[in-house]
């Protein structure tokens, strides 16, 4: 139980490369893994590390986020002391009600930060998905006497896999201290990539935010971290498990396909660190007499009469007789009627795919059927 750390989640991230998936929602609200939203992993990681005071900073469309997290009950965060706080932007004489970057976002949440009784802040973004607890990172932070400790994992170099949205490539010395950072670089040869998780003393965070604001700087990575690399002891802490960065529709598709791999399931759905989500009380999934399901993840409340292969079906999906769904993602409450055929398709929530439809996308550019559409 970490009584001296509070969590702060910036849930306002957007990304144009996620196309229609983020038309109506932020990245943190994206449905993943047949049951969850991205933020479930962010919150569960914190809760599984004993953090009991968490502030979520949403940005634009946060109605669905508020609907999803509610009082925080499903994450055991409906507490009398501390608990879950949602910190939307608001308009005051020193606050425009919207943000230029993470720095003024944090400034907007300064009242919450000031009131948090904990000494340390675990600050995270919301487009990186993984399952870990932060106990090791806390210990490392204390041992090294770091000002800031950030989580990273190892990825192929830029040359090997191409540059990635918001990739933060790290150079570290033998002690683990970060000596250089390259943001959105296409040339870095470093394999270490930041995971958007920072552990920092609360008063230092407040100071850094005020200082950057005073100089008209808003970008947390470039204006706070990179600028202060020499003055601040910034250390890296490695996460060895599975990591997904939701940087494009293809990476979203890839994440969901990775959920089908037993080794990824064992890591992301690890029994010791369960991922909590909003409870829906759906009935268990039901398979009809002609159902044929292979290598797929099926949420509760699904009714399956047709064929499903290499796919992820979220809660309450209906698959009619003779329907063939391959390499696809079908989100909550969508209905795929009789004799349809889907390949490399991402079907958003509450979509109706009419009988005899034939929808085909590609791995690099999956076909996305937007929320509520009738096809």
């Amino acid at each position, binding site marked *: 139980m970490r009584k001296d750390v509070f969590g702060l989640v910036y849930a306002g991230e957007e990304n144009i490369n996620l196309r229609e998936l983020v038309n109506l929602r932020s990245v943190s609200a994206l449905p993943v893994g047949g049951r969850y939203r991205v933020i479930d992993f962010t919150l569960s990681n914190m809760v599984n590390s004993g953090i009991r005071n968490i502030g979520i900073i949403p940005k634009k469309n946060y109605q669905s986020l508020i609907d999803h997290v509610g009082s925080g009950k499903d994450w055991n965060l409906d507490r009398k002391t501390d608990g879950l706080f949602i910190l939307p932007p608001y308009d005051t004489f020193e606050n425009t009600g919207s943000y230029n970057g993470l720095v003024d976002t944090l400034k907007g949440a300064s009242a919450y930060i000031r009131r948090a009784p904990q000494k340390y802040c675990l600050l995270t973004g919301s487009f990186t998905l993984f399952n870990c607890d932060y106990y090791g990172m806390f210990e490392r932070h204390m041992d090294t006497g770091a000002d800031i400790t950030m989580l990273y994992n190892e990825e192929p170099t830029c040359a090997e896999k191409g540059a990635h949205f918001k990739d933060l490539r790290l150079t570290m010395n033998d002690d683990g201290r970060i000596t250089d950072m390259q943001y959105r670089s296409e040339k870095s040869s470093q394999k270490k990539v930041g995971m958007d998780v920072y552990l920092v003393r609360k008063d230092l965070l407040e100071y850094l935010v005020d200082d950057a604001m005073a100089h008209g700087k808003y970008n947390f990575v470039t204006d706070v971290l990179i600028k202060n690399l020499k003055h601040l002891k910034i250390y890296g802490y490695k996460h060895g498990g599975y990591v997904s960065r939701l940087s494009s529709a293809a990476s979203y598709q890839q994440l969901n396909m990775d959920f*089908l791999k037993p080794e990824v399931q064992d890591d992301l759905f690890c029994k010791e660190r369960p991922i909590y989500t909003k409870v829906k009380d759906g*009935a268990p999934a039901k398979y009809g007499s002609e159902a044929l399901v292979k290598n797929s993840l099926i949420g509760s409340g699904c009714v399956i009469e047709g064929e499903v292969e290499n796919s992820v079906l979220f809660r309450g999906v209906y698959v009619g007789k003779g329907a063939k769904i391959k390499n696809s993602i079908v989100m909550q409450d969508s209905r795929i009627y009789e004799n349809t055929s889907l390949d490399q398709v991402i079907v958003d929530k509450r979509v109706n795919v009419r009988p005899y439809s034939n929808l085909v996308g590609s791995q690099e550019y999956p076909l996305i059927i937007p929320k509520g559409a009738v096809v």
Partner: protein
Amino acid sequence: MVVKKQCVAMLLAGGQGSRLGALTKKRAKPAVPYGGKYKIIDFPLSNCVNSGIDTVGVLTQYEPLELNEYIGTGAPWDLDVTAGGALVLPPYVSGQKGEWYSGTANAIYQNIPFIERYDPDYILVLSGDHIYKMDYSDMLDFHRKKGADATIAVIEVPMEEASRFGIMNTDEEGKIVEFEEKPPVPKSNTASMGIYIFNWKTIRSYLMQDNDDPHSDNDFGKNIIPAMLTAGEKLYAYVFKGYWKDVGTIDSLWESNMELLDDSPQLDLHADWFRIFSRNYALPPHYVGESGKVVNSIIGDGCKIYGEVVNSVISPGVVIGRGSVVRDSIIMKETEIGKSCTVNKSILDEEVTLEDNVYIGGEQKITVVGTGVYATKGAIISEGDMIEPNRVLKQD
């Protein structure tokens, strides 16, 4: 402070359910798992909430541990309210005296002080061994409209089965003129469902009289209802139409689970209407592997299916290994089935472990394997066997 409630529900959950054998060795009958996710008690509790009743006393006695833990604060059914909610009521010692609940009526009698705290006009008495969706508020409306002292929910059963039930003989108005407990030659087929609405003031006096009678069995069916009829109270039968099943035996529990697999089951758990709530565990969606095959079955969250599942109901967290075949069976939570096993027409309770090549059951009689049983490689459990909990079975 008394917060007045129009109607308080009292759920009789103390029964042992000895006819369920190994399944109720370690738990009370209402805690028996059902339908790949639920426990029997989810049905009356959800019915209460869906009927607008927010105060439910749950009377426990036999093996209450699992049930107490399951009900907790009542939050899964939205029964964690400021006044009322789901309250577990075990028998207790008062002054120098303490006694077990000697019968259904005695259980309510002993909890008169609990009921009085809510100053109700009516009490609804429920039992914890039936699977059904029912809006009790319709029954309460009927009760009030008839100006009844007691209303008993009845269901029409096949005439040839009627002698297994308590039969209510009524006039054209639905007024009960005669009650026969398991009559050899039934006069009608309207069977009591064990669901009663009473005017609180009336029933309280009958409960007190009954308690003073040393010869009474303190049972609603045997003592209270006949006494009210004799005294000329107005008792009405409320006819319920819909799915209703007493799952008090291995056969009926198995049957009722299998009925969920029908193409359009009479009991629709997928409908948004009148949802059945239950305690949900933080489990991922279930996974069907490349070698898996699932036909005409129900699969809970967190299962991993690498074998074949046909006509079966599989609860959360079950693992079925490659090459195994599970047919016409009910597999409860977190049971692990190894590779190349065969399970035929069986009920495997929670946390059973089968190593590889285990063979269970046959075509005709139902085989039951209690919780925590461990069957080593190649073990055989014969058709119709009832294996007690936590046994270790080795290959002969």
